[in-house]
Structures are given as structure tokens and as C-alpha cells.
């Protein structure tokens, strides 16, 4: 089930809210768990078993790790839990990738398994991994209640597209949390804004990307239009989903970590990755990069650590070489920045933003490509390769048609609007006006989003496939 759908907004959500707030405090997690299983099973009931098994092993090994804390057995149980989690992820997500590459290298033709990827498996696997590691490290206590642990892992707001919520961040809230009008209003605000980002901006720009892919008469302008639209589409799609997840979490009394912090205003790629998909970046930092030794190792080893982390980041997004190349490209850039570029970039003024956005836009072209050759072809075409005309009537039309949405997208990907709203709110008269206007604006946005959904349009969430 997707947040930006009529079944979720007008069937699942009201029912869940009713049941949740009607339930006594000690049953709230059970209600959340049951409804989360319904949410997950709605689209793919057969994959429930993967998730339930993952949760079960996480629960059992968590208890065992804690029971044998500071002994060799604890490490053994952690290894078993990690192997099971990664084993399931590899089986579902990477088996065919490995087989295809094995076939390519050996000339054999082993049959592909053709396993459909369970939705959200990359997200909930990482949550279970972090839980087991945190219990092993002693930074979290093992959860005694299966319902509580399952409610944490399966919690529908963040289940299928993040943010990757750490158990340590919400362990206390699982037992004790407050439900306030202020929290609820904040949650509603984040949810509706996220819905607007997804439905009005991301979906619309997604349509433009689809039009480009289907177009037979491409031009240099059209390639650029697509590249910029896709860059905005990815941001609004993913950050919109994160906003909705954070908002829903807050309505149910949880505080999830922020996942985006205006990444497109970054002045370096290093800064970009501190602002983009923060929960994934910090996960790899804490559970892979630092355990590998981080930067407190010989230089060659440090480089290796960076390449391992970014290769993993790339492959986390998809089992294909273009994702690996995408990750490695960032590894190279990050090393270059750390070695030579960061200081000059600090003095580069606006040029540094052009540098970052150019890299980001080109990286997303590779990210979206069917394969590496396709991605390179698109990048070449953007710079005049491939013999495409400079402009075409079709590209001009779509530039005009989607121009305003793209401008709104560009402005919306900076803090300008949030800062303006804050400044107005802090003014006494402006604050009174905002008190009235903000709820009306949110209600109108919900109505307009509903209108888009009723009319039916391009709607799949991009990050589901990860």
C-alpha cells in the first residue's frame, strides 16, 4: 500500500487511527503491529513470511546476544543474526545479479532464480541488523516483548521506504510515549506537506521523465530537461515519503530521525551526503565504515574503506552495475574532495553549487539508466554527443508545460519557503495570519492531492524497489 493512494488515505489511515487511539495504552503497539502487517501484506501478502521470519530471528538472537553478553557466544549469535539477515537480503535482491555475472565471467548459463524483490526488504533488514549490533555492543537492551520489537521493525510509517529508524532512537517510545495535540498537529503538517511533495511535484515530474523515455524524437534540450526533472523527482519523491513517515510517526507518538536536509543547496559532495538520505549514510558510517576502521587506519586502508562503503551504498540501491558505478563515482569524488577540493570549494562562491548540482544531476542520470551504456549515452547526449538536435518542438513544449512545476521544485528544494514561513510566523501580525492560513493551506493541499489521486496518475514510489 502506498501513502499516496486513496485506499491508504481514506480507508486504512482512518481505520488505523480509530483503532489505535481507541485501544488502551498497553495494546497500542499490538494495534500498530497488526495494522502494519495489513499495510505490508496489502500489496504483497506472500512476502509477509520473509519479514516475519526476519523479525523472529532478530528477536531470538537479540535475546541470546544479550544473555551471553561479553562472551564468545554473543559474537557467534551476532554473526548468525547478521548472516541470516544478509543471507535473506542477498537471496531476494542479489542472487540473480551474482548468477548473471558468474555466467558472464565463466560462459556458463546457470538459470536465473527470478525472485521478485519483497518491498522494503533493504530497509527492514538494516533495522534488524542495527538492532542486533546495538544489543551486541551494549548500546541497546534486548527487547523482551516480541510485539514491541515487531511493531518497531514493521511499523508501517517507515517500513517500506525509511527513514531507517534505529532501535535505540525509539526504544523508550515503544514503552512510554505521549500523544499530544501539538505532536499530532506537527505530524499532520509533515504528512500533508510530504503528500504534496510526492503527489503534486514528484509524480508530475515523474510523468515528464516517462514522457522523455517514451519519446522517439529526443534533443539535447530534452535530455537536460529529463535530467533536471529526474533529479527533482527523486528528491521530492523520497523526501516527500520521509516527511510522510516522520509525520505519521509523530501522530503515533514516535520521533523518527530526519532523512533530508535540503541536499541540493550543498557546497560539496561531502556536504551533499550529509544532507541526503541521512539515515542510510549514518547507518553505513556507524555499522560499516567505523567498524572497518574509518579513517584511523593507513591511507590505503582508508581509501579501501571508503570504496567498500560506497560500493555497498550503490548496491544497496539496486543489484546492477550502474548502481555500483554510481556509488563508486561518489567514492572517488569524496576522496578527491577530502584530499584536494574541500578548501578551494569553500572559497568558490556560487560555483561550488553549480559543481555539486552538475555532479548530482549526472549521477542521477546514471542511477536511472537501464544499464551503464544507457547512462553514458544519456550523459554524452546532454553534451552534444549522439548527433541529437539542440532543441525540438516536443522539448520546448514540455519545458513550457512543466516549467512552473520545475521552478516550484527548485525553490522547494531550498529552505527559502520554510525560512519565509518562519519569518512571517515570528512577526506578531504575520503569526496571527499564519495561524489561520496554515491549517487552511494544509486542508486545501490535502484536497488537491486527493483530486490528483482520484483522477489517477503516475504514482509508484521510487524507493520501494530498494
Amino acid at each position, binding site marked *: 500500500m502506498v501513502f499516496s493512494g486513496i485506499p491508504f488515505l481514506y480507508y486504512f489511515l482512518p481505520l488505523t487511527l480509530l483503532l489505535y487511539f481507541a485501544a488502551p495504552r498497553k495494546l497500542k503497539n499490538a494495534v500498530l503491529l497488526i495494522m502494519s502487517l495489513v499495510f505490508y501484506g496489502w500489496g504483497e501478502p506472500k512476502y509477509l513470511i520473509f519479514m516475519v521470519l526476519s523479525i523472529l530471528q532478530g528477536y531470538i538472537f537479540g535475546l541470546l546476544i544479550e544473555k551471553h553478553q561479553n562472551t564468545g557466544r554473543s559474537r557467534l549469535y551476532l554473526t548468525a543474526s547478521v548472516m541470516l539477515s544478509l543471507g535473506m537480503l542477498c537471496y531476494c535482491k542479489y542472487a540473480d545479479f551474482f548468477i548473471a555475472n558468474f555466467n558472464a565471467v565463466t560462459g556458463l548459463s546457470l538459470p536465473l532464480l527470478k525472485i521478485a524483490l519483497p518491498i522494503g526488504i533493504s530497509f527492514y533488514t538494516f533495522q534488524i541488523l542495527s538492532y542486533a549490533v546495538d544489543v551486541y555492543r551494549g548500546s541497546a537492551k534486548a527487547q523482551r516483548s516480541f510485539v514491541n520489537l515487531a511493531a518497531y521493525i514493521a511499523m508501517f510509517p517507515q517500513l517500506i521506504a525509511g527513514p531507517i529508524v534505529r532501535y535505540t532512537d525509539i526504544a523508550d517510545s515503544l514503552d512510554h510515549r505521549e500523544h499530544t495535540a501539538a505532536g499530532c498537529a506537527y505530524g499532520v503538517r509533515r504528512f500533508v506537506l510530504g503528500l504534496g511533495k510526492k503527489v503534486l511535484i514528484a509524480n508530475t515530474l515523474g510523468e515528464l521523465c516517462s514522457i522523455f523515455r517514451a519519446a522517439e524524437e529526443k534533443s539535447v534540450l530534452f535530455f537536460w530537461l529529463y535530467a533536471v526533472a529526474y533529479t527533482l523527482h527523486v528528491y521530492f519523491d523520497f523526501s516527500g515519503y520521509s516527511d510522510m513517515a516522520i509525520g505519521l510517526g509523530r501522530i503515533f507518538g514516535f520521533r523518527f530521525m530526519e532523512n533530508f536536509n535540503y541536499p541540493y543547496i550543498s557546497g560539496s559532495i561531502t556536504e551533499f551526503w550529509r544532507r541526503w538520505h541521512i539515515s542510510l549514510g549514518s547507518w553505513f558510517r556507524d555499522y560499516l565504515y567505523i567498524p572497518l576502521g574509518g579513517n584511523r587506519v593507513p591511507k590505503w586502508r582508508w581509501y579501501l574503506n571508503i570504496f567498500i562503503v560506497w560500493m555497498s551504498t550503490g548496491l544497496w540501491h539496486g543489484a546492477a552495475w550502474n548502481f555500483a558505478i554510481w556509488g563508486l563515482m561518489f567514492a572517488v569524488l569524496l576522496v578527491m574532495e577530502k584530499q584536494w577540493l574541500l578548501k578551494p570549494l569553500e572559497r568558490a562562491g556560487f560555483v561550488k553549487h553549480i559543481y555539486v548540482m552538475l555532479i548530482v544531476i549526472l549521477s542521477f542520470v546514471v542511477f536511472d539508466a537501464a544499464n551503464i551504456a544507457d547512462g553514458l549515452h544519456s550523459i554524452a547526449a546532454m553534451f552534444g554527443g549522439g548527433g541529437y538536435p539542440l532543441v525540438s518542438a516536443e522539448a520546448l513544449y514540455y519545458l513550457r508545460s512543466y516549467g512552473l512545476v520545475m521552478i516550484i521544485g527548485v525553490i522547494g528544494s531550498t529552505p527559502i519557503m520554510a525560512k519565509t514561513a518562519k519569518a512571517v510566523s515570528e512577526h506578531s501580525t504575520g503569526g496571527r495570519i499564519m495561524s489561520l492560513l496554515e491549517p487552511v493551506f494544509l486542508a486545501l493541499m490535502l484536497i488537491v492531492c486527493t483530486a490528483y489521486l482520484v483522477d*489517477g496518475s503516475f504514482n509508484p514510489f521510487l524507493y520501494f524497489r530498494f
Partner: protein
Amino acid sequence: MKERTKNIITVVLTGIIIFGFALWGVLMPDGDISISERRPLKQFPKLSADTVISGDFTADFEEYAADQFPLRDAFRRIKAYAVYYLFRQGDNNDVYLQDGYASKLEYPMNEDSIRRAAQVFKKVYDKYLGESRVYFSLIPDKNAFMAESGGYPAMDYAGFTQLVVQNTPFMQYIPIDHLLELEDYYRTDTHWRQERIVDVAKHLGEAMEVELKGEYAENVLDKPFYGVYCGQAALPLPAEELYYLTNEVLEGCSVYDHETGKHIGVYDLEKANGQDLYEIFLSGSKSLLTIENPACSTGRELIVFRDSFGSSIVPLLIEGYSTVTVVDIRYMSSDMLGRFVDFHGQDVLFLYSTLVLNNSVTLK
């Protein structure tokens, strides 16, 4: 206090919307059809273990929930306003508005589709039409007159025509595009206006060496005509008047519908009570009709292979023929034609719009 009030208003307002429409949707009886979109609405899907496990139930429920949502047409209109006027997009669901006319983007030219259509025509020619004089005419869709001038992507109509002609050397091409202009089409519909294409019919007649006087009385339907783009654009476009032309010749004709085995009129005014008023012309989508014209004594016969544009122009060709057979190979296989039509050297006219040739998968 200010913050607290804002919070309460926010929660209450959004709560009213979500819970209100949720309750309304559950209590409201399901509708059968969407009049504005001219299609049946999705009904509650079959609920069983099989449909749930296979995912069919949930997929169908998504459609059902959107189709049966309260105030669906009003919401579709809100979306259209947002697309056209808030975000200033050029089209909504590919439908665009230009100088008071609505049309659907038809782009790009699908050369494979055009060649496929030509192959179907060739197959029909080889199988049935060896003794006939075979003509072909191409009806440009509305976009030919409004897309490019409005900055919308448009097909190369000259290239389109050239490609069709190149691939149909067995037919004599009769150009008609020079006789058409935007005003010859309905503002809210795909089709051309019958009262504006008498000159086209005459021109076709001349090319086929048949004299057509083209004298008709104009009749107007007493019902407002909302074309297909009204529903698709979801905007309150003004209604149009639908005219149909009559004269003594047409009134004396009998039309035999091979599908139903019944005789019908050239104009089926019962269709004026339906969803698509354009269906009054030869009763709309019919696979095979035979029109007998007792007023014509020449004994000349015509077979017209046509799409829906043909429904309104064929009545204007009847005058010159004793018998006109009207075939729509979108609704019947051309392989079966020999069972129903006796081909014996009649004049044959292939009359198709660019819309059908550019999407020729429907031709059988």
C-alpha cells in the same frame, strides 16, 4: 495560545476531510458509470483467498476506491484546474485547450502503425478488390489545425500522408485536407461537424466520378452536445449544438445492420438519449451496414471502409449510389468480410482518420 489554536484547527480540519470522506465513501452506494468519462466505474472486487494472495483484490480495490470516491467529478475538476491554471501545464491527461477548442495530443507519428494499417488495406485489396476502383482519403485530426500554432507537439501531417500514399500504391489518393479547417471540427469532440463537410463529400464524389448535389436541410438536436474531451479535460467546457443534415434522398434510404439483423435509420435519434450524441450518425460503432438508396437509379455501388469519422460523411455520399456498404474493420475481421459482402467491382473508398492510422492495432 496562538500555536495551540493553530494545532487544533489543523487536526480538526484534516480530520474532517479524512474521516468525512472515508465515512461518505463507505456509506455512499456505488455508481455504475461515469457519464463525464463515458466508461463503467470499477465495482467492488471479488474477495477470496485466491484474489487476496495473488494481489488481484488489492490492485482492483485501488481502482475501485478511486472510481467510487465521493464527488469524483468535482475532484477531477479540481485537479484539472490545478493542472491548467495553478501549475500552468499545457495539458491534463494529454488533453489541451487552444482557442476554445479541446484536443488530445497525438504525437509522435507512429510509422510502424501506419505501415501496419497499409498492410491491412493491402490484404483487403488482394483478397476482395481486384475488380474495383479503389480510393483512399485521409482525414487529418484536429491537432493538424491547432497543435503547432499553439506550441504543442504536432505530427508532420504532410509526411504522414506521404508515408500512407507510398505504402498504398494500389489505391488512388484523394486529398481533402485543403478543404478542412479547425472550425470544421467540434470544439469538445474528436470528430468533424457534418454540416461543415458537405464540400468534402462533394470533392470525394467528384474524384470518384459521382455527382452529388449536396442540398440538405440542417437539423439541430434539442440536446446539448458535450464531446468526449469534456469528460477527459474535466473542465466545465460549454455545450455545443449538434447538427445533422437531411433531405428526401436520405429519408428514403433504408439501412440494414448486419450485427442485429435489423433495419435502422441513417440517423438514430434514440442515441441522443445516450452518452455520446455523435452516435446518432449511422448508429455509432457498427461493424457492417448496408444502405439502400431507392432514389438512385444508376445502379452504382460503393463500399466504404471507415472509422467513426465516416459515420457522419457517409450519409452525404449516399445520394450518388444505389447501395453503400459501410465496413468498420476495427469491429470485424477483414478475413470474414467475404461471408457478408459480395465484392463485384463496386467503387471502394478507404476513409480513415490519422488518429486510427497512428494507432492501427485496432484494425483487423
